[in-house]
């Protein structure tokens, strides 16, 4: 997937002809400081905000995991999955993949934050969309829960290898799942490299390079 976009919020220009290539079937992690346009990029890809330019690739059918679970509070877990158009078989498979079949009849407010985010992940993959967008989905979770969900994410990614754009500000998180790392700064990609996913927290040379790109 290729994109070239310009996005302005009133006077502020977030992207001015920003070009990026997102490899199909791979996990691209977008890193960068707050306010560089990471979330805006996802919103452009999902069609949530208007922009100038073009995106060359399939973006009609996307799965989106937001920072918060964004589940409908008055629907059960399975009803939340039905809400996005999934059928019974798809729901059963998605819940099994994320090991949350036991929560099917429960309401979101009876689940913990991590469990709700698991449901949000299940909702994102239930229709097996070719493009999966994740906006700092684990940023509010503690480390053990984050590691469990990263593991769950890897399982679901391997289940059908969609194109993934994963926005995060956690370098370790990006390096543990990403096959390509992009660092955004001032509306440009200041760093872009292919990497091999490593263990969370592992001190690699890529980590030093990414850290340098973010802080320079």
């Amino acid at each position: 997937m290729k994109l070239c976009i310009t996005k302005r919020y009133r006077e502020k220009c977030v992207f001015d002809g920003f070009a990026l290539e997102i490899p199909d079937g791979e996990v691209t992690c977008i890193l960068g400081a707050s306010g560089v346009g990471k979330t805006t990029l996802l919103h452009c890809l999902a069609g949530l905000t208007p922009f100038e330019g073009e995106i060359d690739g399939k973006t009609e059918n996307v799965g989106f995991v937001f920072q918060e679970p964004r589940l409908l509070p008055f629907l059960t877990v399975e009803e939340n999955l039905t809400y996005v158009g999934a059928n019974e078989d798809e729901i059963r498979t998605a819940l099994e993949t994320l090991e949350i079949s036991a929560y099917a009849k429960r309401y979101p407010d009876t689940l913990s934050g991590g469990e709700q985010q698991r449901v949000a992940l299940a909702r994102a993959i239930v229709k097996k969309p070719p493009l999966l967008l994740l906006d700092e989905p684990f940023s509010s979770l503690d480390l053990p829960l984050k590691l469990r969900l990263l593991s769950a994410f890897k399982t679901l990614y391997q289940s059908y290898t969609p194109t993934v754009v994963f926005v995060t500000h956690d370098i370790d998180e990006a390096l543990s799942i990403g096959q390509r790392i992009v660092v955004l700064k001032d509306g440009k990609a200041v760093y872009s490299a292919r990497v091999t996913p490593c263990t969370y927290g592992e001190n690699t040379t890529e980590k030093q390079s990414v850290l340098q790109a973010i802080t320079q």
Partner: protein
Amino acid sequence: MLLKKLLGKHILLMIGGVALLTAVWIVAYFCVGNDLLLPSFGETVKDFFLLWIDGAFWSALGVTLLRVLSAFVLSFALAVLTAVLSYLYPSFRAFFAPILAVLRSMPVLAVLLIILVWTNDGVAPVIVAFLSLYPILYTQTLTAICGVDNKLLQMSKAYRVPMSVQITKLYIPTVAPALIKACGLALGFGVKLTVSAEVLARSKHSLGVLMQDARGFDLPQLFALVIVACVLGFVIEYAFVCVAERMQRGKK
């Protein structure tokens, strides 16, 4: 168990409130000491129950309720329609704002006199109630629709959820409790307003005209009829509020 306790406490407090009002009435009756100014509590209660076996009372009650219901249905339908338009089109909301401001500030009972010139005593109370209920229901409906969580709407947009599904699964469940509560308040207010308008318009076969007839020579019956109007308004309002709270609890 906790719910039962809370409900029990609530009912006890309400009975306490009624008992206080009754006590004030009885004390005031003995202080005034004139049945032509303030009837006794016992006499009024007797008349209140005598009304129940009076066919004219039931037919008057039916006619008044029909007027309340007509005004309510009319204002509710128009309020929902215009609130949805205001939500969808900000320009419509801006265009509509001055009209709404006029309706809100209108002294409806004074306007009743003008409406009586144009229509008759049967229709005028309905129009008066409509003019009062419509701005309330419009504002409540618009506030409820605007209160739908923007993050859930954004999620729905990302997943391309069809509008029909969004309406049935997101908008209606979010808006319904607030709207039902507003309907209860509007109906309760509608009863008071319609009866007041009927008194002024001397509408035939209505609670209002029964009050007019009782004025002067049958004060206990007048008080009994006022109590009927109060109880009716309260029961309707309370029933709707209970349903709305039950829905909200269910939602949680």
